[in-house]
C-alpha cells in the first residue's frame, strides 16, 4: 500500500535522512553547533551520541584559554547572549585527551572548530587538527564576536577571510575545510565568495549576532564583557535569509546554523539551501534537543512527502 507521496505508509522505511557534506557521510543532517555541546563527552551520560549526524566540537585555539570573566550569559527574548570568549583547553589537549575519549563512545562525524588571533595561529592549530585521525572536517571560526584582536576580525573583511582560508587550506591536506562566517557584516555574500575562491570546501553560517543587554538597576551590561553573541530562535529568520543568499551565490555546500530549534526548522534551513544543519542555543534550553530532533525528523519528512533531504533548496 503506497501513499500518494510515494512514501510507504505506516513507517519510515522509504525515508532517508542521510546526507553527504564535502564527501563526509552523515546519517542525518543534525549537528550540535560548536560551543553548545562541549566536546560531546559532557553529554555522553544523557543519550547515545551515535544517533547524531555529527558533532561540532567546542571552539579550540592553539593555546589553552580561560575566556571572559562571568557573567557570560544574559537571557533574551528568543534566546540568549553569551560571551564565553573561547574557553578551551587548547589544541594539544583536544587531540591528546578529548578526541580519543570521544572516539571511544562515538563513531559518527567529528567537526573540529578552530579559532585564532593571527593567521599563523590558525595555521599552527589546523596543522594539528589535520593530523588528528578522529577529525573529519575542520570548521575554521572567523566569526567569534567574543574575543578582541582575532576571531570576528578575520570574518568581517573578504580579504582577511580569504587570507585565512588560503593559509589553512594549504596545511589541511585532503581534510575538508569549512569557514564559519559572521552575520555581523555588510555583505555576507562577498565574504562567502572570497572564501570559496580561496579554496574553502564548505561554509558554516551564521555565528552569533553581536548584541547587548543592560541590567537597568545596576546600569551596567549584564555580561561582564559588555557585548556578546546573540543566538536562539530570535535569529532564525536572519540565519535562514543568509543561508539562502549564500547557498544561491556559492557552489560549495553550506552548514546552516542559527536559531534551529526543531525538526521543522531543520527542514526549513535545508529548504533555504543548507546541506547540514547545526543546532546551537536550543541545546542550552533542552540538552536533549538534538536527540528529539533526530527522532522526529523522519516523521516530518514523511508528512511532507520528502523521501530524502537532498536538493530541497527552494
Amino acid at each position, binding site marked *: 500500500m503506497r501513499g500518494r507521496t510515494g512514501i510507504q505508509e505506516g513507517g519510515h522505511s522509504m525515508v532517508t535522512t542521510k546526507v553527504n557534506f564535502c564527501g563526509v557521510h552523515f546519517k542525518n543532517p543534525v549537528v550540535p553547533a560548536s560551543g553548545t555541546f*562541549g566536546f560531546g563527552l559532557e553529554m555522553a551520560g*544523557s543519550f547515545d551520541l551515535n544517533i547524531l549526524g555529527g558533532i561540532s566540537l567546542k571552539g579550540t585555539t592553539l593555546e589553552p584559554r580561560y*575566556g571572559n570573566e*562571568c557573567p557570560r*550569559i544574559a537571557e533574551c527574548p528568543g534566546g*540568549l547572549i553569551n560571551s564565553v570568549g573561547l574557553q578551551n583547553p587548547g589544541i594539544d589537549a583536544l587531540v591528546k585527551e578529548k578526541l580519543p575519549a570521544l572516539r571511544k563512545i562515538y563513531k559518527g562525524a567529528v567537526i573540529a572548530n578552530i579559532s585564532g588571533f593571527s593567521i599563523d595561529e590558525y595555521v599552527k592549530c589546523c596543522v594539528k587538527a589535520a593530523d588528528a585521525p578522529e577529525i573529519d572536517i575542520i570548521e575554521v571560526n572567523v566569526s567569534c564576536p567574543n574575543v578582541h584582536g582575532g576571531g570576528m576580525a578575520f570574518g568581517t573583511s573578504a580579504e582577511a577571510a580569504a587570507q585565512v582560508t588560503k593559509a589553512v587550506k594549504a596545511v589541511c591536506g585532503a581534510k575538508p575545510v569549512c569557514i564559519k562566517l559572521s552575520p555581523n557584516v555588510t555583505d555576507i555574500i562577498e565574504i562567502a565568495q572570497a572564501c570559496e575562491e580561496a579554496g574553502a570546501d564548505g561554509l558554516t553560517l551564521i555565528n552569533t549576532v553581536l548584541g547587548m543587554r543592560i541590567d537597568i538597576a545596576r546600569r551596567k551590561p549584564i555580561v561582564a564583557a559588555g557585548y556578546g553573541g546573540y543566538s536562539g530562535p530570535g535569529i532564525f529568520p536572519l540565519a535562514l535569509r543568509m543561508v539562502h543568499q549564500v547557498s544561491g551565490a556559492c557552489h560549495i555546500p553550506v552548514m546552516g546554523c542559527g536559531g534551529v530549534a526543531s525538526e521543522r526548522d531543520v527542514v526549513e534551513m535545508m529548504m533555504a539551501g543548507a546541506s547540514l544543519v547545526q543546532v546551537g*542555543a536550543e541545546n*542550552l534550553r533542552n*540538552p536533549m534537543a538534538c536527540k528529539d530532533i533526530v527522532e522526529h525528523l523522519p516523521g516530518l519528512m514523511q508528512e511532507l512527502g520528502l523521501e530524502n533531504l537532498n536538493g530541497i533548496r527552494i
Partner: protein
Amino acid sequence: MKQGKFIIRSNREIADRTFILEVEGDCSATERAGQFADIALDGFFLRRPLAVMQWDATKMSLIYKVVGEGTKKIAAMTPGEQLDILTGLGNGFDASLSSGKALIVCGGIGASPTFSLAKQLRERGIEVNVILGFNNASEIILEDEYKALGCKVAVTTVDGSAGVRGFVTDALDTMATDCDCFYTCGPKIMMKAVCGALEIPGEASLEERMGCGCGICYGCTCHTSKGPKRVCADGPVFKKEDIVW
C-alpha cells in the same frame, strides 16, 4: 542528569519573597545534598536553576526567592501545574568530611541546599551547628526545621530584628568550636569571609549566571587553583582551598 515532567504539589511563601515549591516526579537522578534542579518556564529561553532542599524517590522541595521575572512566574504557579525539570545537576556536598561535629553557615536561601546535608550528617550521629544569616527577621527560613533535625542553630540578622545583630561571621566564634569541617552557601562575599576565617576543611557552594546548567556551554566558569571550572557541572560545591575568590 535526567529530564522529567513534574507536577506541582504545593508552592507557598515561607518568608519575605521566599517560596518553597514541592513537586512530584522521578527524582532518581538526585543523589547528593547540594545538587540542583533546572526548571523550564514558558516564555523564558533559559531554565531557572534552583537548589534542592530535600528529596526522596518521587518528591522534591525547592526553595527560591523572587528576584526577577522568571522566579515571579514560578511563584504564580499553582498545584496541579506541570513543570519540565532537569534533575541531578551539579556535584553536591561531600558529607564524609566530618567525623564528629560539622558547621553549616548559610546566608539567605543558601540555607536550602545544606538542609539535606544536615539531615544526612545527623543520621550518621554527627553533631551539626548551623548559622543562618539574614538581612532581617522577615527573611528567616528553616530555623525550626534545622532545630527539628537536632542541630544547634544560631540566627544572625543585619538589622538585629532577630538573633545576633550582624553577620554570620559574628557567630563563628561560638558556633565553630570543636567543629572538624564546615559547609557554606550564600552570598559570595559571605562565603569568602567564612572560608577566610575558618582553619578547618570546608566546602562552599558557588553561584553564577548559568546557560545550560549541565556543563555543555561553559557559561558559568569560575577560577580555581586547579584551573577553570564550570560552576554547574564541576561545582557548584568546591573545596575552600580550590576557590579563587
